[in-house]
């Protein structure tokens, strides 16, 4: 807690994967230095810190070798700052369940958003929106199971899956508006909809998730450089 800038986070504000790490740092009250990266012109620091993927986020803790990959960073932070606001539960089965759903979100659910952006034509986009909606219903079931009547995936307070999914809410709102459809709605995903409103205003997230304007600018850059 407040170990100065012993922690450096290399990232860009619109990246939900970077936001994830920021949220965890906030939850654990860890001071850190945010090193903003220009993805159009990557710094020497980023290229040497993540030579394999050259991506953000990357965490550098004191003089230790850098750690890339948001989920790996989160588990690392949870292990070294284990006494403040644990992110993952302690039991092996609960941990496995959490890790399974984070994997589902990162390998099945979120890639649909990039696919939606890249797919031309109404019919194509409609098919992907259908898949996103199906995914959201799986997430609704998962939320009901994990929360067990409490406000968050983590129970009484924000936990691993709240962070892993919550970091995307800026983008889900943006995509809903841009494509004129509802990902989370009262009829299909009532509990998750309530959760999105709750977590949107949580202390640890509200100053981290970017405004729509920032996301719109980033979206335009993506459309230009990665059509």
């Amino acid at each position, binding site marked *: 807690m407040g170990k100065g800038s012993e922690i450096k986070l290399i990232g860009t504000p619109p990246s939900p994967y970077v936001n994830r790490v920021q949220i965890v740092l906030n939850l654990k009250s860890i001071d850190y230095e945010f090193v903003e990266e220009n993805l159009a012109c990557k710094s020497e620091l980023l290229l040497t810190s993540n030579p394999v993927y050259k991506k953000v986020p990357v965490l550098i803790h004191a003089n230790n070798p850098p750690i890339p990959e948001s989920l790996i960073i989160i588990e*690392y932070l949870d292990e070294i700052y284990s006494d403040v606001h644990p992110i993952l539960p302690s039991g092996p089965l609960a*941990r496995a369940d959490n890790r399974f759903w984070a994997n589902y979100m990162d390998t099945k659910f979120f890639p649909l958003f990039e696919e939606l952006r890249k797919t031309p034509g109404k019919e194509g986009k409609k098919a992907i929106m259908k898949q996103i909606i199906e995914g959201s219903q799986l997430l609704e079931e998962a939320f009901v199971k994990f929360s067990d009547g409490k406000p968050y995936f983590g129970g009484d307070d924000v936990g691993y899956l709240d962070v892993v999914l919550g970091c995307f809410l800026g983008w889900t709102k943006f995509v809903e508006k841009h494509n004129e459809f509802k990902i989370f709605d009262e009829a299909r995903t009532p509990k998750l909809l309530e959760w999105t409103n709750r977590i949107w205003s949580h202390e640890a997230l509200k100053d981290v998730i970017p405004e729509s304007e920032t996301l719109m600018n980033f979206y335009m850059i993506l459309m230009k450089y990665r059509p």
Partner: protein
Amino acid sequence: MFKKSVNKGMEKVKLFATWSSPFVKRIIWALKLKNIEHEIIYEDLANKSPELLKYNPIHKKVPVLVHNEIPICESLVILEYIDETWKDAPRPLLPKDPLDKANQRFWAKFSDDQVLPSFYGYIMKQGNEKEEAKETTLAHLKRVEQLLSEKKFLSGESVGFLDLVFGWLAENSRPLEVVTGLKLFDEDSFPNLCAWRDKFLEVPAIKESWPDQETLIAKYQEINLSKGK
């Protein structure tokens, strides 16, 4: 504190598997290294059992570990579950140090997201795509070669998590070479990788699991992989 019994008929462990899945084998090796009694149920993926579909409704894939009727899916998740549940029996798969752990998790993801797809791409694709896949795989293998410098195993002094994750490479490279004639790495360019492969395959838990090298060659020949040349 009570001593957790490693399977004295109290804990039931089942593994849904196929002989060919690189993701399944790593679980079998982990169970053997930890001396965990288990039952293996081999699936026909063209005709999945109702049990598999019940235990893994989202992905409908193997491996699925079922521990006392509770399913755990996704091989890397399963490996960490095994390590956390059967903690020191006989020793941990992952290191204790959080930084070392993070490092192993990073390279585990690299195996599955990068090396494995490009390796099998090289085996299965044709023409230009084959050439590209070959170049990509060689670049990836150079990184793995570097990981092994001054180390006996990927996990350090003894076989561990990262070796199990990359084990598919040790196990399948020679049989696939024999069947398809495609040789990706040799002793001159990849001395560490070749030495690691030999050491890994000699570890008793690895050596004693089915299918062995000869059986793999026979099975790959059966499915006529040689036409991937």
